[in-house]
C-alpha cells in the first residue's frame, strides 16, 4: 500500500479507503426479524412518553430535547456543586 500511496501523493489510510469503497459490496444482510434480546428490552420502554411525543411536531420534539439538555446540564452542575461543598 505504501508505494501506491506515495505514487498518489496521499497517506496510506486515505489511499486504502479510496480503493476499498468501490470494491466493497454494499449489500447489508441485516436481519430485522424480532430479536429476543431487543424484545426483552422493549417490555421496559415507556410507551406513554412515545405516544405523547408522536403528538408533537418535529420542531416541538427538538425544542423538548434542548430543554432536556438544559435540565441535564443544570443537574450536573448542581451535583458538582454539592460534591465541592461536601469536600
Amino acid at each position: 500500500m505504501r508505494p501506491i500511496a506515495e505514487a498518489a501523493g496521499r497517506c496510506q489510510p486515505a489511499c486504502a479507503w479510496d480503493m476499498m469503497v468501490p470494491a466493497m459490496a454494499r449489500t447489508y444482510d441485516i436481519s430485522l426479524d424480532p430479536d429476543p434480546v431487543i424484545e426483552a428490552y422493549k417490555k421496559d420502554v415507556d410507551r406513554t412518553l412515545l405516544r405523547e411525543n408522536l403528538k408533537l411536531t418535529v420542531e416541538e420534539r427538538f425544542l423538548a430535547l434542548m430543554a432536556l439538555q438544559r435540565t441535564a446540564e443544570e443537574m450536573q452542575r448542581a451535583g458538582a456543586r454539592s460534591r465541592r461543598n461536601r469536600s
Partner: protein
Amino acid sequence: MPEPDRGVTDLKAILTLLRDAGVEFILVGGLAATAHGSARLTRDVDIVYARTPENMARLVAALAPHSPYLRGAPPGLPFRWDAETIRRGLNFTLTTSLGSLDLLGEITGGGLYRDLLPESVEVTVFGVTCRCLDLPALIRVKRAAGRPRDLEVIAELEALREERDRRPE
C-alpha cells in the same frame, strides 16, 4: 458569572448553518431518533455528509468560524480544519462553539450519503428543511452497529414504529 451551556447543542443554529452553506447531509443517530419521536436525551448532532469535493469544501467553510476541534482530544494538537483533513479522514467527532457535531462519511449498515438518500425523509424544523434517515433505516443501522449500549435505543425505536403503525393517519 453564568457558566456557558456546554451540554446544550444549538440545534437551530447548526441546522441553519448547514442549510445556508448548501451542505448535503442526512441527520442520523440520536437526533434522527428524536425527529421520529424518541424520548431519549442526546447531546450531539450526527450527520452523514456527501464526500464530494464541493460538499466537503462547503462543510469546511460553514464550520470554520465555529472553532471545530476533535472532541476529547487534548488542546493544542496540530488539528487543521480544512478540506484536505476531511478528504484524508472519514468520520470526525467534533466540538464546535454551537455544540457537539459528528460528521460521518459512512455508517455501518447504511453506507455513504448516496446510499442513504433513498432511505431518508424530508423534515422541516426551525424553518430549515433537511433530510433525516427514516425510521426503518435508523433501526437497521443501529442493529448493524451491534453495540450493547444501543439495545435500549433499538427497543425504543422498534416500539416507536409499532406505535406509529397503530396510529390512524
